[in-house]
């Protein structure tokens, strides 16, 4: 059986470093529908103290969860730390080009989203890249919250659990 959502082997340290150094996330493909995965992730990340700015040409000018929706990354007037991609894999390359152009530091492609060529291009431009992972799930896993649902976090430690600040 194929393994379409295999977890790439990013170290916990690498992911933690990204999450700790990120404050503003541009979410490309953010949906205004409450039962879509991007809405789940946006709401969760807002509750954890991130500012999430939605990007979706079809919903430009509307609001999602109190944030104005922009038509493209280049329209956003504030500095973006991470570009989080909720789009099909073949839609990734122009988004990565824009992310490089606006000076984002991290490209994060969601579960099922992977584009190795675009990832290499971003890495050559000095960006960190994560593919085929969910920001919400990884934040939850590393903070211990995912374990509350019986999910295997892989975390083993005799030290007091630290919350991600």
């Amino acid at each position, binding site marked *: *059986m*194929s*393994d*379409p*959502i*295999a*977890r790439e082997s990013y170290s916990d340290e690498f992911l933690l470093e990204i999450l700790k150094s990120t404050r503003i996330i541009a979410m490309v493909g953010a949906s205004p529908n*409450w*039962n879509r*995965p991007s*809405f*789940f992730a946006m*709401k*969760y990340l807002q*509750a954890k103290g991130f500012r999430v700015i939605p990007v979706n040409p079809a919903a430009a000018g509307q609001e999602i969860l109190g944030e104005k929706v922009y038509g493209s990354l280049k329209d956003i007037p504030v500095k973006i730390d991470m570009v989080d991609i909720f789009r099909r894999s073949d839609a990734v390359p122009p988004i990565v080009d824009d992310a490089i152009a606006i000076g984002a530091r991290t490209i994060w492609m969601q*579960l*099922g989203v992977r584009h190795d060529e675009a990832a290499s291009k971003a890495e050559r431009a000095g960006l960190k890249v994560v593919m085929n992972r*969910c920001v919400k*799930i990884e934040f*939850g896993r590393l903070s*211990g*919250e*995912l*374990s*509350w*649902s*019986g*999910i*295997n*976090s*892989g*975390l*083993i*430690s*005799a*030290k*007091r*659990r*630290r*919350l991600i600040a």
Partner: protein
Amino acid sequence: MSESKKNDPFGFETRAIHAGAVPDAVTGARNVPIYQTNAYVFDDVDHAASLFNLQTFGYIYTRLTNPTVAALEERVASLEGGRGAVACASGHAAQLLAFFALMEPGDEFLASRNLYGGSITQFVHSFKKFDWRVHLVDPRDPENFRKALTPKCKAIFAEQLTNPSAVVVDLEAIATIAHEAGIPLIVDNTIPTPYLCRPLEWGADIVTHSMTKFLGGHGTSMGGVVVESGKFDWGASGKFPSMTAPDPAYHGLTFYETFGDFGYTMKTRAVGLRDLGPALSPFNAFMILTGIESLPVRMERHIENAQKIAVFLEAHPSVTWVSYPGLKSSPFHDLAKKYMPKGAGSVFTFGVKGGYEAGIKTVEACNLFSHLANVGDTRSLILHPASTTHRQLTDEQRLAAGAGPEVVRLSIGLETAEDLMRDLDLALAAGQRK
């Protein structure tokens, strides 16, 4: 690198103690506390809404999640090499939950005919009330599963080291047949435990346990669990609208798309556990967590004692046969070496000369073996399946399940092996008296 560290940076013994149990951030409590509470306060109405919508992680109500139970779920998921787990009140509840996320009315599944008698009853009779139909298959030739497949089949189910007769099923071959049909393989791993066999490493997609048995290990606490590998592609299969289509039982949420490789675990909890209701008590979760910490050392003694008792019985004049895959005489010896190289568990059967009457007399004559319907205790246990656990079956089903009239089942505990042999020797002598 030791065998136990094959797929994880930490070894099996370490994870049996530490997985799911990082010390609490606030109190620093070293052991997992018993969170004996029904419910959890919300920060505000919006937080409550996010929790009910599954948009944020957190606790609502102990029928769904509980911190003590969650620690146990993560520990078992880790030991099985799985992505996530849902614990519940019993092994039977685990089987019901495992199917509930997959089946629609009118659907069918295949199950090995060598199962715990209560599972055959559950599948054949009670599942019928959901309009689910099981086809029982002789598991000794994996091709029998392929031949029995129908277009409506949604899963293949088998026990590894079947109860009572310790048949070893060829997991790898059966998994291939299931995957070629686009359906998952569910394996009940109660008797081997993940210490002896990890079905997910051989291609199984879902593992169930009665944690009442070896995981808890001390005969004190009921519990069950469903573990998901995270590797089954529900989307490519196309046979599971309950995973891949908006769920009317959850406001149109699509579980596979939203939760990816733990979508089945979320579905099993948020719909199955929520609506069927067989939650595990936090106290039982604590007891089972404590039991699992010593699972590796207990299993070592279980299999050492079982091997000694099996050899003793095979040479005994009042015993006609012994069905233990650890013996060279077993037709499952080679499969056992492949799937359970450390040892073939400690639950097995033997035949008593003299049939039904001699079998009953032998069981009743034991002094140290406890006569009861359970397996996987520190204590050694004995049972006559035909008159107890497999009583509700037809004669034909009993024979097929390895529970014929002369059959006695043992679950070998951790006592001194010589004491167990002496007890059986005296009981077998009593069983032969007219």
